[in-house]
């Protein structure tokens, strides 16, 4: 069964289009990136899945359950980290976690303490005193506390320092090992490249490409960049045989030479910009 099934989803805000005839599936037990420019329709899709907003037409399903009709059941197995984390200002971190825990059928105090320690968060601090990064950590802990089958994350790493980002993804990989499906919207394409199994690219409210990261990595071309003495730098994507090129380059007097795989960001940018 697919974790997420979006079928011909259309959402208009008055006359403004959010998404139109959007269709894609997310299989179980994968980490799937959802990327696209600002305003492409990522948040609209996520908010429809979680029944924050109602579709104009089409359906959004989570584990076969309709987002409109079975919202409460969906929430029981789905956790969500919003892009902007807003919490009750006069609450302490621990109070908020207790509040989130009050809605869960089973409380796991030990796990809560482990998460607090793992993400280096002081539970006795007032939420209003926390930095954006620390607020994000609160959101991540709230999200993980549920031990959900599906974890939906909207820009999860914004505000987190690089070390914490690494720890966060390490935790996500653990959740994946336990069987969870992770659907994350992100502008950080390096994270997507490093941790996702698949990526759905959305532009102007429609999916323009669905890519498997394994295929992308297989199909990636090599970029050759070099500079000969007294000449302009040259950079191009390799089309022929690498050995032929290196033999040819060996005859030149080079100032520098770089041969590396084309970055996935480069590949994504084409879809972002509408070149493909």
């Amino acid at each position, binding site marked *: 069964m697919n974790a997420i099934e979006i079928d011909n989803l259309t959402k208009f805000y008055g006359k403004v289009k959010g998404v139109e005839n959007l269709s894609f599936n997310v299989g179980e037990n994968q980490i799937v990136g959802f990327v696209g420019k600002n305003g492409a329709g990522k948040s609209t899709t996520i*908010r429809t899945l*979680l*029944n*924050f*907003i*109602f579709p104009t037409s089409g359906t959004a399903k989570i584990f076969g359950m309709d987002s409109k009709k079975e*919202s*409460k059941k969906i*929430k*029981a197995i789905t*956790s*969500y980290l*919003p892009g*902007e984390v*807003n*919490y*009750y*200002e*006069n609450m302490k971190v621990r109070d908020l976690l207790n*509040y*989130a825990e*009050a*809605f*869960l*059928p089973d409380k796991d105090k030990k796990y809560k303490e482990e998460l607090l320690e793992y993400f280096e968060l002081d539970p006795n601090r007032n939420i209003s005193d926390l930095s954006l990064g620390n607020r994000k950590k609160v959101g991540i802990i*709230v999200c993980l506390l*549920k031990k959900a089958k599906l974890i939906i994350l909207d820009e999860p790493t914004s505000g987190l320092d690089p070390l914490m980002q690494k720890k966060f993804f390490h935790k996500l990989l653990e959740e994946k090992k336990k069987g969870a499906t992770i659907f994350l919207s992100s502008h950080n394409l390096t994270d997507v490249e490093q941790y996702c199994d698949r990526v759905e690219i959305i532009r102007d409210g429609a999916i323009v490409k669905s890519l498997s990261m394994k295929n992308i990595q297989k199909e990636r071309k090599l970029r050759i960049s070099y500079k000969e003495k007294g000449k302009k730098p040259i950079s191009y994507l390799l089309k022929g045989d690498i050995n032929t090129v290196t033999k040819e380059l060996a005859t030149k007097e080079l100032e520098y030479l770089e041969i590396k795989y084309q970055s996935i960001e480069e590949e994504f940018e084409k879809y972002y910009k509408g070149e493909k």
Partner: protein
Amino acid sequence: MSKNIEMKRVFTVFKIDFIKRLKSNLIWVAATVAMLLLYLLLYPTMEELILEKIEAMPDELLSLLGTDSALGITDFTSYFGMIFGVFAIVYSIYASILGSNVLYEEERTGTIEFLNAQEISRTEIYLGKLVNMVLNILIIVTFAYLAIIISGYSIDSTGFSGVDIFKVVGLNLVVFLFFGSIGLFSSTVLNKKIKPSSVTIGVFFGTYLIGYLGNLMEDSFPFLQYVSPIYITNATTILNSSLCGGTEFYNPTGIIVIAVLTFSLLVAGGFAYNRKNIQ
């Protein structure tokens, strides 16, 4: 609305919201009770002064205060009737703001994203907020009633009737709940950009002024008075009516209509909230 309502979750939402609002609600309770006590306990020292001042007031202004003439204010209960007319306005505004904000605040601050992502239905969220609104209105009215009873029995132990005051306060409670329900309903149908409290307070003053106009033009347009719920539960009118042993017939139609409207608004609010786009 969802059929599977779990009271534990409703209670959780209610509890957190109640605690969150406790400080500001306590300020409202303390301030209004203090003012009410001050007004009522000063009655013996102000009796003559009040009569003088009131004699000088035009009849229209007296009716705005909820009494027809200075002759009516001959004892503490009548004085209470006049004073409570002013406090009924204050409590109606309090209920309007409270009802408007219980849900709207979550949307304005963005915390609704957190709450709505938990394992809870919108109906349960709505009910938690509704219970909080009703309880807070009940608390402020109970404290007001206690303040009136304490001052009443300490000033006029023979002529004062706690039961009559209970009837006045109880009927006014229905009106406060009505304005609270307008606020709550508004927050379920209005876009986040429009503050429901402005709409609710607008409705309150609109109906109040139309009711006052109806009072001024009693001969030509008497029905206009019934547009204002505050007029329908005017303390002096109730105290002088058959309901409190007076001579004038008390017509319960108005209060029944308000109660039915309140209930309808609360049910409609629940349905509307289940269909609202939370943005």
